[in-house]
């Protein structure tokens, strides 16, 4: 039996009724009077010089109210391309019209003359000396070719184990250009610990491989949208579907040179984000510019196709990884070289390559990672940005080692996992985390220890770690005369965080969950709040809410002390009433009575304030096991069982936590088995749900979730961020299960049936 009455309970979400009745207002549901419809004019080439933009025909179309290009950006900050486009779908202009179909027609009437340039879409092509250069000399400060050449060669000694022709082709080409500086490298990141060369030399088994992970789209169901309204005084209101209204406010201010106080951002209910809904350029800036020009509210809404061509998806990458271990199962060294596909701008999560270290005691570690430019849109965060890619490589390779030394994959992981106080390679000391508990929990729940296997069936296991972020936030709590409690804050609800905040406050003020309501303010009214991403909200806003409720609690006792003429030490808040401890007969006063009384006191109404910015977070682990059946003739993989456990610290709302585990695991499954943004010379070639398949309910069975609770010292009630970890291990879980089922290892995702068939053919199947 829990010591708590509201936190830890599966309560219905605060937004339940509005979400199931269609009443919730999302971005595209906002329709101020006189609103115009915006449309962005996009490049039809993936790489080209712009010779001219002719808007004259479009301007003549009845209903067109404004057409803007980069010339209409007073600050001069780049919003639209001018002389050169770097990817298919890059914005060149925008139109506002009285009707969405007219806006679309007008966009088509704008004539753009291109001088087409050679295109490069593949990272391993883009780093070749012969590749087209995206940014001319702008990125000339990159590393020397000799440096990368040496790294690639060092990692490629064990040619027999690495089937990647790409790498050897690259090596050959790099040989010819030893001293040149790279052009398409946008960023680099390096870290090391110990001495990997020594570690490999002492290892009995060394495995190396190249892993290729595709670019995938977050595919939130609500496409990007914003409605902007600039009034004649210059005040700008933006209704934005975003994870971070305050970030959008400062983004607009910075990009357009407008003071913060002139911008109010109203966050609308968000139709999914997963990290991809922070950017300011995509729709918000064009909407503001069009509204400024027309003096009317303007909505800019992306289509699904535009999401695929000009969204900010998760970067794909190529990771070359090498691991050494002793024959009794101790991992001694690991070295990684990664090339991340940043697209046309820098910003891919290359630092996450460090995640190949996993949660293991690896004394010797060396990581080098590079961001590479290609003719694609830029990238953004997607649920534990960078971790699923790196962990796919790390956890796939661990299974290969386990197989070679003949150890059970779960036991091998358990044996190498770090414990409290162990050194984190290239990091600090490990705090108390339920690594082993989480892996053991999933193994027990899945039936790993006595697993049955029929022909063509197999089991796969993997783990993934992630640590929630933290950021500033503020919360106010008011207690009203009827005893009800109202919360006010500025953080976007992301899959139940408003509910968690409400639960925490109800718990502290000892009132029923139903008597608490929560309101989100806009950036004009609410205290600053960090964006809802990085699994921060429950950790940050939970702590903030706790402080606010404790502040209100203090005032409540103070009022009761005054009212009952009793020392605070003799008072206790319980069941929504302040009781006099050990009074006989019992004596108490309700919260409602105190709130009414407060109105005529010197101290005034009950208002609790919480303000919080930072406390160290604790890592979380997700562990998953899949049982699959692979048809060797068609290569099709069917999931028979998928079990996911996670150390969540403390589940404030177990129903919401299970939902996060289930949803994240299925996104990981999709990355492993189905999803891939495909690019040709012409740019993205699968910009829709027919060609970019995401899972439906028909694709896989029920995900079984297992909650493990090893409290985080600084989390509210011990809670950790839960949103991101569950996507991190699934890619490897699936690859390991397929390998176990039919003996072929697929290192290039997604594991499409044809790849399995090809690999089986190479293994002699059906010959």
């Amino acid at each position, binding site marked *: 039996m829990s010591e708590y009455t509201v936190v830890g309970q599966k309560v219905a979400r605060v937004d339940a009724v509005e979400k199931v009745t*269609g009443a919730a207002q999302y971005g595209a549901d906002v329709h101020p009077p006189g609103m115009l419809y915006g449309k962005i004019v996009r490049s039809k080439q993936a790489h080209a010089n712009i010779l001219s933009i002719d808007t004259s025909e479009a301007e003549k179309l009845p209903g067109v109210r404004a057409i803007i290009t980069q010339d209409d950006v007073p600050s001069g900050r780049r919003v639209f391309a001018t002389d050169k486009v770097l990817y298919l779908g890059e914005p060149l202009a925008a139109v506002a019209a009285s009707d969405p179909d007219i806006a679309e027609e007008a966009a088509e009437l704008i004539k753009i003359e291109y001088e087409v340039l050679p295109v490069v879409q593949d990272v391993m092509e883009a780093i070749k000396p012969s590749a087209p250069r995206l940014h001319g000399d702008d990125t000339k400060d990159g590393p020397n070719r000799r440096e990368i050449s040496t790294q690639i060669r060092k990692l490629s000694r064990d040619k027999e184990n690495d089937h990647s022709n790409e790498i050897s082709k690259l090596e050959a080409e790099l040989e010819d250009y030893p001293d040149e500086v790279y052009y398409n490298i946008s960023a680099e990141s390096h870290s090391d610990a110990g001495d990997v060369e020594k570690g490999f030399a002492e290892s009995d088994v060394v495995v190396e491989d190249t892993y290729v992970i595709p670019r995938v789209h977050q595919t939130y169901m609500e496409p990007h949208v914003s409605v902007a309204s600039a009034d004649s005084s210059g005040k700008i209101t933006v209704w934005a579907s975003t994870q971070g209204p305050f970030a959008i406010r400062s983004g607009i201010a910075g990009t357009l040179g407008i003071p913060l106080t002139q911008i109010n951002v109203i966050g609308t209910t968000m139709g999914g984000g997963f990290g991809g809904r922070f950017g300011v350029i995509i729709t918000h800036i064009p909407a503001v510019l069009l509204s400024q020009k027309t003096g009317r509210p303007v909505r800019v809404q992306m289509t699904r196709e535009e999401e695929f061509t000009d969204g900010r998806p998760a970067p794909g990458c190529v990771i070359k990884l090498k691991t050494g271990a002793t024959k009794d199962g101790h991992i001694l060294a690991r070295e990684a070289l990664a090339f991340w596909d940043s697209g046309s701008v820098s910003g891919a999560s290359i630092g996450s390559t460090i995640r190949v270290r996993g949660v293991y005691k690896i004394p010797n570690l060396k990581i080098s990672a590079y961001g590479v430019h290609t003719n694609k849109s830029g990238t953004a965060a997607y649920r534990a940005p960078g971790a699923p890619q790196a962990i796919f490589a790390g956890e796939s390779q661990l299974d290969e080692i386990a197989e070679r030394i003949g150890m059970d994959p779960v036991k091998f992981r358990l044996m190498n996992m770090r414990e409290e106080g162990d050194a984190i390679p290239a990091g600090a000391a490990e705090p108390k985390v339920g690594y082993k508990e989480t892996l053991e929990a999933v193994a027990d729940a899945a039936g790993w220890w006595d697993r049955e296997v029929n022909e063509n069936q197999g089991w796969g296991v993997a783990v993934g770690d992630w640590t929630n972020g933290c950021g500033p936030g503020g919360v106010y709590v008011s207690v009203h005369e009827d005893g009800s409690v109202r919360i006010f804050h500025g953080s976007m609800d992301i899959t139940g965080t408003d509910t968690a905040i409400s639960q925490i406050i109800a718990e502290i003020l000892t009132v029923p969950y139903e008597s608490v309501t929560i309101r989100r303010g806009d950036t004009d009214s609410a205290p600053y709040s960090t964006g809802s991403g990085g699994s921060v909200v429950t950790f940050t806003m939970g702590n903030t809410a706790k402080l606010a409720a404790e502040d209100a609690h203090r005032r409540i006792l103070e009022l009761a002390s005054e009212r009952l003429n009793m020392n605070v030490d003799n008072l206790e808040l319980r069941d929504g009433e302040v009781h006099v401890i050990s009074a006989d007969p019992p004596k108490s006063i309700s919260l409602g009575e105190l709130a009414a009384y407060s109105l005529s006191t010197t101290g005034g109404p009950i208002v609790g304030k919480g303000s919080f910015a930072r406390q160290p977070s604790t890592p979380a682990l997700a562990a998953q096991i899949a049982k699959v059946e692979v048809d060797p003739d068609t290569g099709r993989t069917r999931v028979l069982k998928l079990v996911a456990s996670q150390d969540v610290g403390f589940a404030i709302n177990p129903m919401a936590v299970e*939902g996060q585990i289930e*949803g994240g695991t299925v996104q990981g499954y999709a990355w492993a088995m189905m999803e891939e943004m495909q690019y040709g010379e012409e740019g993205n070639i699968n910009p829709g749900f027919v060609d970019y398949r995401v899972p439906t*309910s028909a694709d896989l069975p029920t995900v079984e979730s297992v909650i493990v609770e090893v409290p985080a010292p600084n989390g509210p009630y011990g809670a950790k961020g839960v949103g991101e970890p569950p996507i991190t291990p699934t890619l490897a879980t699936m690859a390991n299960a397929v390998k176990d089922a039919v003996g072929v290892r697929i290192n290039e995702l997604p594991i499409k049936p044809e790849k399995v068939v090809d690999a089986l053919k190479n293994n002699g199947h059906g010959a």
Partner: protein
Amino acid sequence: MAKHSVSLTVNGDEHDLLIEPRKTLLAVLRDTIGLTGTKEGCSTGDCGACTVIVDGKAVTSCMVLGVTASGKEITTIEGLASDGELHPVQQAFINTGGYQCGFCTPGFIMASKVLLDENPNRSEEEFRHALGGNICRCTGYTKILEAILQAAEEIR
């Protein structure tokens, strides 16, 4: 563009409208009538977010021209609850946590309602396949299936 006269019954209310032939039923519901509960997720009939009920059948309203819906009876998510009582499917989505961001939820609820009207005795596997035209990106479908099974129980 010339407009056509169209007469629709939406959630029991009659609407006589003048609409352009290129406007979809989804656009008519959202922009002309102002019922924004029905969502636009892909505009190509692939995600199911815009599912409404037309003469008893689940239809992706982005794939239907408004003019062709003339004379038909349409139910949207706003018309599902009656007399302040949620429909059992709506209640089940709340009870099980069958939604997260909620954007696909109206479509799922409308599709589920038609499936349950047709036959509430389907197995879980049958419901899984029958709901294959609707995409949810948040839940992984586990709790959506729980919701429809719970609603089926309630209705039977």
